[in-house]
């Protein structure tokens, strides 16, 4: 059973994993692996972006567990925590998606034991780090300072999590890194982790498998700016300088990669300048969705393709430039990959909210939804996953549509299914008296039909299968192309 180990490093890592989870929830295929194991590496334990990604992953995991293996459908791909990949419960690894830093509740100065260093060493430390670096509390991460991150993250390789990961790494497993190049945690963590995993002298087990494993990475270059405020430690005016410095390092020092994806965008409206903590909760951005697609793209290549002529470098360009990206602005390949699935997910989420609780129909009666929606925990979990104002699908689509550049393929203000795809309303035929395009009646009729044809005793599994089939049919019959 091949696995994809996905290292999401820093805030960008968390946000990209959030987008990937949404894509997988919509039914996007991730070939060449049976299971994704996200490992979020961020010392900022209270980071808002990370915590809502973890909440989403946990919710997805519960839903997928109930659904089990399926040929196609929403939540098809298995997402697992590191500790879940092995039956061995004695690995000393917590059942979580987050790498456990054990709470670095100290400043960088304390972490280095600065006061116990020799005079020469102190001089060296002062040469490499500013006073601000030294006084920086590590509880909120590295605040855009890769020089700090590269010291702290070196510890990662000696951790029980990394040993557990290596112990359970098998031939055929792949590794992918997600990081930003202009911050602190990602910029420091990615090359460091890669170097340690590919190190021929590593003390980790399964070293040969690790060395030979197909490895990809997406490195996100600046795509947002931060509000310039006095006394703020992160200055987004330095992002480009830091990117250049890091790229120059990558050029000569990245070894062992089979594919590297670069993404960037011109920053528009600046974000609130929050260096970390619960307040660092940035709106989902198109770049993060595209970064998530780089993971899908990487997994679509066969072993042979990736190994021939590696490393492969990829960049991404929109089909046509727009500050409000709709499906029509995406290149054909991307559109074919996501348009139908995201539309299906939107239809499902919308119907779930607008009509499902009040439907009076055979499918509703047969699935005993009146009781299940109110009382069964898995149905409540699905409700959270779709509609939670923190981490739900609706919220994610809203954020994407509100950010700059906006990803706005849907009109999220309308309740009319015919008008939900921006710029591509479903045509209503004049002679179609009872089925006004993609109406409530149309969906209801097809739900009832599918209810008769799908033979599944579990009401939750059947509900998801019904909606996947019906939204698939709705797209094929009514939307056709976007």
């Amino acid at each position: 059973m091949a696995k994809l180990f996905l290292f999401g490093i820093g805030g960008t890592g968390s946000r990209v994993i959030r987008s990937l989870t949404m894509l997988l929830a919509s039914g996007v295929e991730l070939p060449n692996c049976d299971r994704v194991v996200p490992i979020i590496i961020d010392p900022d334990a209270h980071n808002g972006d990370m915590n809502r990604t973890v909440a989403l992953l946990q919710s997805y995991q519960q839903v997928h567990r109930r659904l089990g293996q399926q040929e196609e459908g929403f939540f098809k791909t298995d997402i697992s925590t590191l500790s879940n990949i092995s039956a061995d419960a004695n690995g000393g690894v917590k059942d979580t998606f987050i790498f456990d830093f054990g709470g670095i509740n100290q400043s960088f100065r304390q972490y280095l034991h600065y006061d116990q260093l020799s005079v020469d060493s102190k001089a060296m430390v002062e040469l490499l780090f500013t006073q601000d670096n030294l006084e920086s509390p590590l509880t909120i991460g590295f605040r855009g300072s890769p020089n700090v991150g590269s010291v702290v993250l070196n510890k990662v390789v000696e951790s029980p999590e990394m040993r557990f990961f290596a112990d359970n790494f098998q031939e055929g497993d792949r590794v992918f890194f997600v990081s930003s190049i202009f911050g602190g945690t990602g910029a420091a963590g990615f090359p460091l982790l890669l170097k340690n995993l590919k190190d021929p002298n590593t003390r980790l087990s399964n070293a040969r498998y690790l060395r030979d494993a197909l490895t990809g990475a997406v490195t996100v270059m600046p795509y947002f700016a931060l509000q310039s405020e006095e006394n703020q430690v992160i200055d987004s005016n330095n992002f480009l300088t830091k990117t250049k410095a890091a790229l120059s390092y990558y050029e000569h020092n990245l070894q062992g990669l089979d594919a590297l994806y670069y993404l960037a965008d011109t920053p528009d409206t600046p974000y609130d300048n929050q260096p970390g903590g619960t307040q660092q909760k940035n709106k989902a951005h198109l770049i993060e969705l595209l970064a998530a697609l780089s993971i899908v793209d990487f997994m679509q290549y066969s072993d042979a393709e990736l190994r021939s002529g590696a490393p492969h470098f990829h960049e991404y360009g929109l089909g046509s430039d727009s500050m409000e990206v709709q499906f029509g602005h995406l290149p054909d390949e991307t559109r074919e990959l996501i348009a139908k699935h995201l539309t299906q997910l939107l239809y499902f989420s919308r119907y779930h909210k607008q009509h499902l609780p009040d439907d009076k129909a055979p499918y509703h009666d047969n699935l005993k939804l009146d009781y299940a929606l109110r009382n069964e925990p898995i149905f409540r979990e699905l409700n959270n996953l779709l509609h939670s104002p923190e981490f739900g699908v609706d919220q994610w689509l809203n954020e994407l549509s509100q950010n700059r550049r906006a990803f706005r393929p849907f009109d999220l203000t309308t309740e009319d299914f015919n008008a939900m795809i921006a710029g591509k309303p479903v045509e209503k035929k004049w002679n179609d008296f009872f089925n006004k395009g993609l109406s409530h009646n149309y969906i209801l009729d097809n739900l009832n039909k599918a209810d008769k044809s799908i033979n599944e005793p579990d009401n939750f599994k059947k509900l998801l299968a019904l909606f996947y089939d019906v939204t698939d049919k709705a797209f094929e019959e009514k939307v056709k192309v976007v």
Partner: protein
Amino acid sequence: MKAFFRFLYEIIGSPQPPADTPVYRDVIFPNIGLLNLGLSLALVVVFYYVINRAMGVATFNKGRHWGIFFFLNAVLAFIIAIWQANAQQATEHSYIYWLATWNAVLGMLWFFLFSLLLRRGSTNASTTPF
């Protein structure tokens, strides 16, 4: 068949058909009985198979919609009985209205029974009325 419909329409025992009894027993009972059955079956087919399956209408399947057909069936059964009595030139008598009412009740019974038997084949009303 005549015996069956006679049994059905005289089951309560009173009131009995007036003097021209043979017309009722030989013609009117079988006619309204068969028409009533056919009408109920037709309305059930229209509700469950035409509207809620062939036409793909999925929002006309509530209990109240079924109730509309149920009472429509009763009204038509009532009218059919009066029409048949008049058509067979039965003597004007209050019994005709009693018979029409009884026919309406039987119509509702047929409609209910046909609904139970046939509803499973419907797409959108297979759980209507309950």
